[in-house]
């Protein structure tokens, strides 16, 4: 029994890191900073969703101060109905962040299940399932999203389903590749020899060992979903008013680019900051999870 227990430990290539991932992440300044930026934006979105008023104005409160530029009263100016832009951006954060995170969650569940089935069984099932992914991949994301989004109506739910449907393929491919690679390792063989069930092997042995790259991939799914939503809203096929996300705000601002550039500048800035932070965090996580990266030393 002793030897079998030893055999269960992960193979050398994915040996547990000598430091925790968080400790390693701290040594990548851009990623660590990005982590706190994301935490702050998520906190603001959460507090706003819970009903705390974080701004002096409500998001739909109109005033006679139409299209004012940034001032001490309205830090980011006002729109054509005199609504405070900062308050609208804070309000819009909920939808933008929620869409990003939900899409990643959907991609995780569908992608992992699909990829796990494909990679675990292999053979004909694998070929068939992967052919399906190939076909799904053979269309541009935005095109599929537009078609599905229009079909389901331009509400939040429609956008979420559309985004979820185009976001899981990458995760599925990744999970499948990881499983194919891992399932021939000795510790899986040992688990089989112990007579463990297939489900047990998938969820207790294969998935935990494949989780690193999956998390990295999901970290990149969030920003791409936020970008896709804003792009859809921008070309007028996304959320429709009164729903308010960073994408719809930027889209409104686009129409008055010439006269009032602040209306597109600030929402875009927030989209950009959030997406950039997630991308830096993803890069950092990938390096932190990779035992080959030597942190803190100059690599020649």
């Amino acid at each position, binding site marked *: 029994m002793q030897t079998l227990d030893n055999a269960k430990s992960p193979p050398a290539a994915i040996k547990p890191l000598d430091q925790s991932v968080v400790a390693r992440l701290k040594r990548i300044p851009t990623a660590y900073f990005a982590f706190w930026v994301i935490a702050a934006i998520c906190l603001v979105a959460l507090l706003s969703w819970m009903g705390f008023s974080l701004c002096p104005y409500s998001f739909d409160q109109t005033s006679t101060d139409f299209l004012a530029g940034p001032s001490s009263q309205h830090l980011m100016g006002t729109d054509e109905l005199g609504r405070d832009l900062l308050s609208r951006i804070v309000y819009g954060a909920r939808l933008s962040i929620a869409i990003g995170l939900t899409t990643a969650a959907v991609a995780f569940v569908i992608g992992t299940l699909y990829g796990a089935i494909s990679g675990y069984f292999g053979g004909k099932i694998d070929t068939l399932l992967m052919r399906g992914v190939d*076909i799904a991949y053979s*269309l541009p994301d935005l095109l599929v999203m537009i078609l*599905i989004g229009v079909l389901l109506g331009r509400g939040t739910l429609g956008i979420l389903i559309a985004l979820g449907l185009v976001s899981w393929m990458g995760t599925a491919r990744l999970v499948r590749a990881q499983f194919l690679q891992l399932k021939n390792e000795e510790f899986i063989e040992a688990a089989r020899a112990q007579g463990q069930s297939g489900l047990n092997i998938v969820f207790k042995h294969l998935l935990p060992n494949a989780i690193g790259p999956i998390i990295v991939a999901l970290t990149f799914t969030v920003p791409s979903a936020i970008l896709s939503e804003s792009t859809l809203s921008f*070309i007028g096929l996304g959320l429709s008013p009164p729903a308010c996300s960073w994408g719809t705000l930027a889209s409104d601002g686009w129409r008055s680019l010439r006269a009032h550039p602040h209306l597109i500048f600030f929402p875009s800035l927030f*989209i*950009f900051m959030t997406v950039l932070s997630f991308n*830096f965090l993803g890069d950092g996580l990938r390096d932190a999870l990779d035992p080959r990266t030597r942190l803190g030393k100059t690599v020649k």
Partner: protein
Amino acid sequence: MIALILKRVLLAIPVLLVVASLTFVLVRIVPGGPFDADKNLPPEIIANLNAKYHLDKPVPEQYFLYLGRLAQGDLGVSYKYVNRTVNDILSDAFPVSLQLGTISLTLAVMIGVPLGAIAAVCRGRREDVIAMFLSTLGISVPGFVIGATLIFVFAIELRVLPVGLWESPWHVVLPAVTLAFSPAAYLARLTRASVLEIVEKDWVRTARSKGLSQWSTVTKHILRNSLIPVVTVLGPLTAIVITGSFVVEYIYAIPGMGRFFITAVMNRDYDLILGTTLVFAVLLIVANTFVDVAYQILDPRMRLED
């Protein structure tokens, strides 16, 4: 090689059939029809219009009618652009999008590949940090923000470049640059990763130890080999450019396929939606086939396996 291309062409037919069928079903389920926007039309006229375009027939019959016409290369008629066939519209719009896409892709390769190579060769140094910061920036900015910024600076403030339409070569500059941004950033990241992998190979050490200069080692031994994965992303890159073209053609009012697709979706212009979707699918299949062929030419090991 020819066998491979033939195999790909044969495989493309079922894929296109699936794409056509799915899109057909999708557009018919979508609430609203092509003549809804014209609110003042009396019901008799709408009935006549529906009869003229066979839209009064049951959906399965419409589907087989469509497939029959498709087999003859007829993509149908537009319901909005009166008296224009989809083939007619697409043969005008496709060259515009192709031009824009090719110019942008070329631009992206010319910027992205050197940027990534420089970053990898100078790994960990200032050049690397700057190049990677720029490329992360590039994948983080939405296309419409780049477009808005460029328009604001070059067309509104400086007034040096025209915006909108597709007339002189000057009209190409801003859209092409906007569209090139994210593929360039994507390529830079990919090239860097690929070069870093190659740098550690034994034969690179051999090249260095036999006294080759840094320049020769990089250009002859490292870059050439690390370009293989770069060529293989041409497929995904084409998809990125197509996605980008929706936004860019919308912003700059370019009469390309992306713009026609968006207006067709808004107008429920069934045949035009299907036609553009199919052309996009064909484009991606062609790009992927090209990648497979290029792969075989670039990497002799692939030929032996086949």
